[in-house]
């Protein structure tokens, strides 16, 4: 049987599209929820980084998704570490001579990044630690049962905002940009090839890299599990999320976001399938979206101005 198959698919032919390696480092049997956006993201991150990788994992969903001792679903070594400590632990690892050339990747949730871990992260970027920090953003403390985090968007119902969040999502990207990291990008689990390319690029750069990935969460956002990729795309298309890269002080919008800024999809398309937005004031949410769209446009415009200056 195996022999016959290999006649049609010789061993080294890549069966994945777009040159993404077939090899899997995130194994079956991991204990993620069905339709988990974070595991979809991790799968492509590990395909991009390959086996010469160590993951540093603070308290978050990914702590649980590895599975229970003595098993692990992750095919690369993992250091699990306390909630606030991931960026510093990764810096310590990357600083040791013996780890030169290894990909040291933090895989942290939004709570561990924008809230409790922000101090260690700020310090690590300021020191230009040679790490890739990935924040998978499911917009709440999902692992503990969906409590509000700094990254929860306006209007979203969580167990600690049972009538919906009344204030705004923390813009961690602007905070990271202010640190002038070597590379920064935002991505979405709905665009795995884009994420794969960004991880590849990030790992080719020396210094601190930060990738912020929107990861839809079926139980937390209250939608049916088959819609993860769809919602990951819709978030970008309606302007709730952006795909961009930030390098050398410049923000470059990626194609899906450029298109969305020209002609955004209706916000309702994104909001409606999600139980967490039940009863949300859509107009107020639209204002939030418009405000962040303006900010991103301004940042992209600054880039245009710089380019024009350089050309003249």
């Amino acid at each position, binding site marked *: 049987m195996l022999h016959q198959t290999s006649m049609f698919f010789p061993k080294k032919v890549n069966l994945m599209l777009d040159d993404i390696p077939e090899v899997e480092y995130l194994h079956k049997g991991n204990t993620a929820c069905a339709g988990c956006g974070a595991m979809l993201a991790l799968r492509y991150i590990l395909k991009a980084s390959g086996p010469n990788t160590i993951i540093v994992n603070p308290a978050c969903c990914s702590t649980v998704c590895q599975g229970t001792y003595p098993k692990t679903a992750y095919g690369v070594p993992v250091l699990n570490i306390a909630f606030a400590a*991931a960026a*510093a632990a990764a*810096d310590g690892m990357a600083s040791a001579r013996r780890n030169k050339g290894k990909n040291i990747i933090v895989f942290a949730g939004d709570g561990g990044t924008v809230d409790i871990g922000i101090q260690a992260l700020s310090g690590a970027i300021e020191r230009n630690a040679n790490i890739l920090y990935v924040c998978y953003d499911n917009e709440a403390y999902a692992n503990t049962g969906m409590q509000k985090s700094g990254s929860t968007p306006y209007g979203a119902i969580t167990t600690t905002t049972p009538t919906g969040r009344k204030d705004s999502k923390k813009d961690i990207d602007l905070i990271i940009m202010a640190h002038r990291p070597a590379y920064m990008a935002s991505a979405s689990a709905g665009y795995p090839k884009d994420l794969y390319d960004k991880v590849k690029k990030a790992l080719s750069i020396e210094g601190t890299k930060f990738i912020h990935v929107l990861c839809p969460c079926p139980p937390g956002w209250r939608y049916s599990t088959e819609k993860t990729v769809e919602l990951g795309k819709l978030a970008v298309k309606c302007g709730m999320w952006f795909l961009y890269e930030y390098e050398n002080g410049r923000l470059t919008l990626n194609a899906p976001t450029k298109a969305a800024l020209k002609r955004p999809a209706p916000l309702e398309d994104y909001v409606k399938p999600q139980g967490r937005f039940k009863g949300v004031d859509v107009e107020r949410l639209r204002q939030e979206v418009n405000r962040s769209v303006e900010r991103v446009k301004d940042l992209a415009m600054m880039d245009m101005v710089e380019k024009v200056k350089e050309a003249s």
Partner: protein
Amino acid sequence: MKKMATGNQAAALAVKESNVEVVAAYPITPQTEVVETIASFVETKKMDAAYIRVESEHSAMAACIGASSTGARAFTATSSHGLLYMHEMLHWAAGARLPIVMANMNRAVGPAWNIWAEHTDSLSQRDTGWMQFYASTVQEVYDTILMSYRLAEKVYLPAMVCLDGFILSHAIQPLDITPPGDFIPPIDLPHALDTKDPMSYGNLTGPGDYFKFRRAIHDAMKRADKECRSVEKEFSGRFGRNYGPVMEYRTGDADTVIVGMGTMAREAEVAVDLLRKEGMKAGSLRIRQFRPFPRLDLEGKKVIVLDRDCSFGAGGILAQEIRFHHDVPVYNVIAGLGGQDVRYETIADLARKAKPEGEFWLGVD
């Protein structure tokens, strides 16, 4: 090579000689000279290590854990609030069985702000799974750090070397900078993270397994007591300086023993001389090794325990430890908190007036 050095400089020199690969530290009085001296060693290429100027002590210990988890020798130094701020990571380092060595300059804890010597900072970390040693001379600081690396890398537990803030951290004494050579062999951590043999460390471990890891820490701490004796013996053979878990002073025929830790216990030795002149059969015990706690020879003796610390409502932490291990009456003197001056004359006076049992606060009672 001999030179005059402070306790802080001795700590930095010991780190330099121990071939440490990663140092991560955050400044705090009275530890600053340690991290300044190491930074200077690294920047002038006298020491081939990565020096991470972290933004907090929590991150200092996290960075040491990150480095150590891949098998790199790591060091940090702190004091007081810095130690308390890294408390969570102290548990993590011991639980992950990482042989990190740290110097702690014992200092009081606020409020009120007070930068002077007290042992409550490190003693309140008693149950984190760290070995704890208390030095009382500059040479001992240096030697204990060397021995701590050797020991930590044998039993896979982290070690804390404590010295009294200012009284020892800033005291200048002669120091023999002995290169350890192969007394500290290259580190070989069996559980170092390895990309060729990928494992997850510290992942979810259920009620059916978790306790086994805790028991392993407990056993390692007990084993450390024996291993420490063999490390001290080898150290003595190579370098001629003798250490034990307890340094006994004129205890042979003593019917009264004064027990303490750190510099106050050295002061007690002078008090013993004074009391001996008066005809009292006094001796003293200086506890060097607080975790694992050693057996003491206290049977049939009047025991006076000096505590530069307090567990509020319970009394001195060292006294509690002694009461737990030994069925003897203890007269507990709480003295020297926040740098309160405790002279040998005072200790002698306390010994003269000591009751068989009870508690006495210097300057209050």
